């Protein structure tokens, strides 16, 4: 097969499925359930997943005149994204049942946005990255506003849209300046161009602008302002999706751009990311501290987690990328899991919002509560869960790079963080304050949703108990991004006696 086909196999599959869904949507009678389309989408996702699994064994391929590079790194994120999409589809299969008439488009949008993200992760050409980014962004803008009845939904959507395009403009400006500084828009060429550039300052500007744009996407402080509002307003499954997949993709791009394209300038951006990381962790946790609305709280916490991931960027190249990959994955698992539970608890008309509403969930819906408890424990970072290992790798990488104080800040933050997670966790298992305040809850746990939850939970635990295999994958990914002869990332932490 020509590389052009092999390289983009997952994207192709998804695109076809998406188009099929679009075509099938109008053919179904208006009232009928759109579940079949959902199943179709799930099949497509599985296919994409297997395709990228197949790619894993092909080594590095480049296609479309080097604007695409399939290496362990991009495959890692392909797999991650397709997994996220899978869970998302599973938990939102019956989310719109009997509420929104156009869940068909929803599935299509999820699929298409996935295509965009996958492109982002495997692109080595800024133009492709930009287009991919736009696809995923626009799709998410729309999905935010899917609950059109609710004012919150549309408000979330407009906020996300306006601020998103605002940030995109910065990102674009960054690309332009990078092009200006190096005369090219492909990552490899930029890396070479930087070596000989006559306008270094402009290169700095370029990177800064790109960081701003991507920082917005990963909701790192101080570009986090949109996150709480949007997460609160958007439908729960969408939040679960948009707080994981686009972030993963954006981080992938960030990793490629910082380490590969602007690798030579590490001494410049590392300090910046140091600050961003510390800021994000602190702001996120402080914001969540007094938060009563659960979705909003998780939004803030996701800011903090973005901060934890950014810590990895300050580490040495080898450790950093592996740690970031690992953390992104474990974060995705627990975050989407948490929102999956929330979806099931709150249902479409999200009446249940605050911690008090969740009080006593352990009695009413023990299984869901148990799942949520697990994810919260993982978010806190208690050992034998993915969250803990994620933190562990990230911070050990940072300490290995002598950023002890960053690690201290981060872990103190995780101490602060456990306060609000724990408040929810404890609420789950304590008697309801008042039996009266029990708004209508979502429908009972459906099979596909159960499967989705189980997947997320399993991932969380596996990453926590047997992270070895997965870590190897992350390290392969990290190793595969090496372009210039850089220190190998075989062992994330090398023993250094001093």
């Amino acid at each position: 097969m020509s590389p052009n086909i092999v390289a983009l196999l997952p994207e192709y599959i998804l695109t076809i499925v998406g188009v099929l869904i679009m075509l099938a949507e109008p053919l179904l009678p208006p009232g009928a359930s759109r579940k079949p389309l959902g199943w179709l989408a799930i099949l497509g996702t599985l296919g994409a997943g297997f395709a990228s699994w197949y790619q894993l064994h092909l080594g590095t391929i480049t296609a479309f005149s080097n604007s695409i590079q399939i290496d362990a790194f991009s495959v890692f994120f392909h797999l991650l994204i397709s997994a996220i999409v899978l869970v998302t589809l599973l938990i939102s299969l019956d989310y719109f049942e009997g509420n929104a008439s156009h869940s068909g488009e929803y599935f299509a949008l999820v699929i298409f946005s996935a295509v965009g993200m996958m492109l982002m992760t495997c692109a080595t050409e800024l133009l492709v990255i930009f287009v991919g980014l736009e696809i995923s962004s626009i799709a998410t803008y729309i999905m935010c506003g899917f609950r059109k009845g609710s004012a919150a939904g549309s408000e979330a959507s407009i906020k996300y849209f306006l601020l998103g395009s605002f940030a995109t403009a910065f990102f674009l400006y960054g690309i332009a300046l990078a092009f200006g500084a190096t005369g090219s828009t492909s990552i490899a060429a930029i890396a070479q161009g930087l070596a000989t550039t006559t306008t270094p300052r402009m290169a700095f500007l370029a990177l800064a602008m790109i960081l701003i744009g991507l920082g917005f996407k990963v909701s790192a402080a101080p570009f986090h302002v949109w996150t709480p509002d949007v997460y609160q307003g958007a439908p729960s499954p969408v939040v679960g999706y948009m707080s994981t997949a686009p972030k993963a993709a954006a981080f992938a791009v960030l990793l490629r751009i910082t380490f590969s394209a602007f690798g030579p300038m590490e001494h410049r951006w590392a300090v910046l990311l140091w600050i961003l990381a510390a800021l994000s962790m602190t702001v996120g946790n402080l914001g969540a501290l007094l938060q009563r609305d659960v979705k909003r709280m998780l939004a803030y916490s996701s800011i903090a987690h973005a901060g934890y991931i950014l810590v990895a960027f300050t580490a040495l190249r080898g450790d950093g990328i592996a740690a970031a990959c690992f953390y992104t994955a474990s974060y995705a698992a627990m975050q989407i899991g948490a929102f999956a539970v929330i979806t099931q608890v709150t249902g479409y008309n999200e009446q249940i919002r605050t911690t008090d509403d969740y009080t006593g969930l352990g009695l009413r819906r023990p299984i869901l509560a148990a799942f949520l408890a697990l994810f919260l424990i993982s978010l806190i970072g208690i050992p034998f869960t993915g969250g803990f290992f994620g933190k562990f790798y990230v911070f050990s990488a940072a300490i290995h790079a002598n950023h002890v104080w960053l690690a201290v800040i981060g872990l103190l933050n995780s101490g602060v963080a456990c306060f609000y997670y724990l408040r929810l966790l404890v609420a789950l298992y304590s008697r309801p304050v008042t039996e009266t305040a029990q708004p209508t809850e979502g429908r009972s746990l459906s099979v596909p949703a159960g499967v989705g939850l189980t997947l997320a939970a399993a991932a969380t635990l596996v990453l926590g108990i047997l992270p070895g295999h997965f870590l190897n994958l992350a390290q392969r990914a990290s190793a595969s991004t090496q372009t210039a002869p850089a220190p190998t990332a075989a062992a994330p932490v090398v023993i250094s006696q001093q």
Partner: protein
Amino acid sequence: MSPQTSMIPACYLWLIPLLPFVGFLINGTLGRKLPRAAVTAVALFFTAIPAGIVAWLWSVMTAANAPEAIHAVSRPWIAISGFQVNFAFTVDHLTLIMLSVITGVGFLIHLYSAGYMAHEEGYWRFFAYLNLFMFFMSVLVLSSSFLLLFVGWEGVGLASYLLIGFYFKKDSAANAGKKAFIVNRIGDFGFLLAMFLIVAHFGNLNFTDVFASISQHPEWHGGFLTAIALLLVVGATGKSAQIPLYIWLPDAMEGPTPVSALIHAATMVTAGIYMVARCHTLFDRSPYALAVVAIIGAATAIVAASIGMVQHDIKRVLAYSTVSQLGYMFLACGVGAYAAGIFHLLTHAFFKALLFLAAGSVIHALSGEQDMRNMGGLRKRIPITFWTMTSGVFAIAGIWPFAGFFSKDAILYQTFISDNPIGKLLWLVGVVTAGMTSFYMFRLWFKTFFGEERFVEAQHDVHGHDTHASHDSHSHGVHESPWVMLLPLVILGILSLVGGWWHVAFGKFLNPVFGTAPEATTAASHGLELTLVAISLLVVAIGFFFAWLFYYKKPGTAGALALKVKPLYSLVENKFWVDEIYGFFVTGLLMFTRTVLAWLVEAGIVNGSGALAGVTTRGLSIVTRRVQSGNIRSYAGWLALGAAAVLVVMIFGRSLWVH
């Protein structure tokens, strides 16, 4: 130890404490179910056997070429590298005397109690505790190391706590028990510190090893030895109710009378004296410590005696007299006359036990009446009690040829001739105390047995200490006690008469323990001794005369006199307000500090710091949330600012780099 010493008796040593312990276990667990007879049988049996063993030990120890000491060593109790304590017993002559007091008097008192407590609920509990006491007491005297001695030391404290608080329903009793235990704990505090010092300096707690290494180093004088000695004294004052820790003993009278007789007169309270005597090697090296002991003893003797003169509760009078007599013994030890001290301990055990038991019999007769003002003229009503009591009174007053005379006399004499700088003064104090003693004892004697009958015939049962549970047998007036109670009285009466007659042999008997120092002097100046005897006898006579005058010849003079010297009288009657002063300082201070701690430290610092951190975080969090105004333009503003900041850092950020 040589095989010859570890011959047959060694293994029997274990039985002496263990048998009472078995008795305790049986009565303590099954007692509630068993009939009273069975309980009594168990209790008596398990105290009689040890008495027998002790008697047999006498024969062994006093036989020709008998070992100086019998050792019995068993498996280690605490064993770590560089420090080990075994369960090890030693019997030498000193121990033998103590043992005979404990088992002998102990058995008699058990016997007595069988009658005295016959109608109490919790009968089984009483005997269980009593056996427990026997166990600990014999451990105390048998032990061959400080630590094991401390076991008995604490254990008897526990037993006394339990027995004083026997009528736990009464707050006064419960309080008294608590007070006794805690005050004793203050003493133990000293004892423990002493042991720590010993361990730190000798790395060992066995008497033999410690004393051996002391005698190996004649150059050691004062210094840490004094420190150890003084700390031991603290322990002794606690246990033997000396100034400043004597306050618990009078309250201890809340317990049943046999308990007062056994624990708070004959045995436990003498543990302090025993311990000092046991450590004489140590004390001899520290004249300073010895002086302290002597002074404490003398002071306690006179203070307690003076308080005893004005008490009305018959048992309290005896209690103070006990304290005062213990003061004598302390004085003896303080002037290095250990043998004399132990001798007085022995005789005192006889007559003081006797006095308490007799008093108990009186109280029993009066259905729980303890106030001497409501007694009198009992002479004819309860003759046997009267006669035995009389023997006790004479003995304690120190009238020839009763036991008390010899022992007290020995102490006074030794004090007089001691090389202690203030020896003469101490002697004077002793003599005066002797006078007081005879005064208050005869006061008691007259007020109780002579004069008109001031008591009410108890037709219905009167609630007093010992008759907490009403017992029908008492509802018919004053009566003589049953024989189980009288028999011990008689035996003890005889003992307190003849007990002192072997005083000459006694010193020699203890030579193996204390060395032969005192003997020489006694032999030397016989004339002096006689004069001193004469003086003390005179003083005793004076004491008797006043008692006779005030309380027999013309009663009421005492009251008149009291009115004349009101302040002095009330001062003494209120026991010099010692309890109040302690209460104020100790309790008040404690209350103050703990309240301060609770409010300042606990609430302020410990929890405050946490709260402060919480508040700060909260504040920061509120600030953070202020940014989330919900307004898109504001958000864009923050984005712009952030962007600007990022650009600045990127362009000018080099200086910030901290790699």
